[in-house]
């Protein structure tokens, strides 16, 4: 079968036994689409993988105060952990301040990361609406969207982050 792979250890001119061939045992179990839906957290910059739901910065402010404020401070700065706002235009300065607004190239990354990892002590507690709302709030405090803009699977990929055009790739596919 084409899915089988054969291992070949060849070209060992100094060895008398040169070939070990083994078939893949083919032990993977098929996963249903329902099961996949439960485990698929991947989000792409084009919006692939974003779930249903929506939220605005106004709604997100409440979520932020409850779940994020303690570590990230008032309006995303001055907290004990990473600053999430400010630093705009500082990347060419002597003291760049990397935040969601000043540095992150893609808005979809905000949703993706918060859904995976935040709040730190209890990731997974936020509903999709809450996730869109707090994403909207983080974009709002960085002057990227307006307070009442509805953020959802359709609008989020269209949000252009301020630092978006300042990235190049160090990897060239196929090299």
């Amino acid at each position, binding site marked *: 079968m084409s899915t089988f792979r054969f291992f070949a250890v060849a070209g060992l001119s100094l060895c008398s036994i040169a070939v070990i061939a083994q078939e893949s045992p083919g032990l993977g179990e098929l996963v249903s689409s329902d099961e996949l839906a439960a485990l698929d957290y*991947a989000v792409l*910059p084009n919006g692939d993988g974003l779930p249903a739901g929506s939220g605005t910065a106004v709604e997100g402010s409440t979520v932020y105060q409850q779940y994020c404020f303690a570590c990230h401070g008032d309006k995303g700065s001055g907290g004990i952990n990473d600053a999430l706002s400010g630093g705009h235009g500082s990347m060419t300065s002597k003291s760049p301040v990397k935040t969601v607004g000043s540095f992150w190239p893609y808005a979809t990354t905000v949703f993706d990361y918060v859904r995976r990892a935040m709040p730190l002590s209890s*990731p997974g507690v936020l509903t999709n609406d809450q996730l869109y709302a707090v994403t909207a709030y983080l974009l709002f405090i960085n002057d990227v969207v307006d307070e009442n803009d509805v953020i959802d699977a359709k609008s989020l990929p269209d949000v252009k982050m301020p630092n978006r055009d300042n990235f190049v790739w160090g990897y060239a596919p196929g090299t």
Partner: protein
Amino acid sequence: MAEFDELPAAGNGLLDRRFFLRAGVASGAALMTASASSLERQEWMKGPGAGMSEAGAPSSHESHVVRASIGSLTGTTGTGASRTPLQLLDGIITPSRLHFERHHSGIPDIDPDQHRLVLHGLVERPLSFSLDALARYPMVSRIQFLECSGNSGASMAPEPAQGTCAALHGLVSASEWGGVPLSVLLEEAGVKPAGKWLIAEGADSAMMSRSVPMDKIMDDAIVALYQNGERLRPSNGYPMRLFLPGWEGNMCVKWLRTIKVVDQPSMTKDETSKYSDLQSDGVSTLFTFPMGVKSLITSPSPGLSMGAPGLYQISGIAWSGAGKIKRVEVSADGGKSWADAALDAHVMPKCLTRFRSAWRWEGSPAVILSRATDESGSIQPTRETVLKGRSTAAFYHYNGIQAWHVAENGEVTNVYV
């Protein structure tokens, strides 16, 4: 026996790399007089010793050989790093208990019977693999290094930070990694032609994720189950992790849970906002994957002071994400002259290589350096070259030449040259 001849190889006392291989070295070294009491029958020789045990542990006299510079973000216990005590080790294998750690939300306590690896996305057949199933696949094992791309980031600071090799460069380790080639599993699932990348995700509470190009996966990526002959330690991804030889550590996703085949990178938090390289012109480079050619003198080094003037071994490690180490040069005069170091027998691709030089230290202040060259011809750059064009906030992918200053009293400190 003929009088031993110390062949000079470079300035300030560096000797020919074959020095240690020659007969009669002992006659050239200072003779120490043993104190009489240490030669008598010792207390531990006056009765049978301890019995056998199910698992060994280092000597109680080696309790100082532990991971160092352990730190976690404010308010967290598992969002940070611990570092390998490179200056206290020799050879190339890092004992598993001393392998560096870098976690993004702690170490999950995974039940291996419940854990599954799922391949999905642009595949013909989404598949799930249990640990028992994976253990039945043909495996490969290789001795290779793993380096966090934030390793040595302190060397970009304006003033040289003072600390041991562990504190400054301890986010690199080497192990024998054994596991199943990921290409075999992906062929079983059937990758669709549009599948050019995959997103690897861990089962930690941050579901740490990275995008990896498919050509690397098909080249030499494995789903590692074994480290140094035993199942992975929890701190290294038990029960399974992605291992990408030579590429930055963060991509070698621990506690591997899902692999989604996609047509473009996900642009996850860690591959954009963290492990990217900011230049002074404001442009940042994403996806600097292979770790650059690098070396480091681990002895002498800060915390390992020199004793009386005399004959010393300079020893260290060299590695490159591009392949084998071809050459390591050592200088004892701040880089004015260089001598080839001897390489230990085990020179393997994308692995630590141990180098050694003989040094006749006359007791005057000296600056010692090492410089590695890999089989692709890349030469380890100077600090100045690495920093050229980089932002003051740049932190990742530092592979510049490390200089140690040896003072007259034998104390070793970090310096820039």
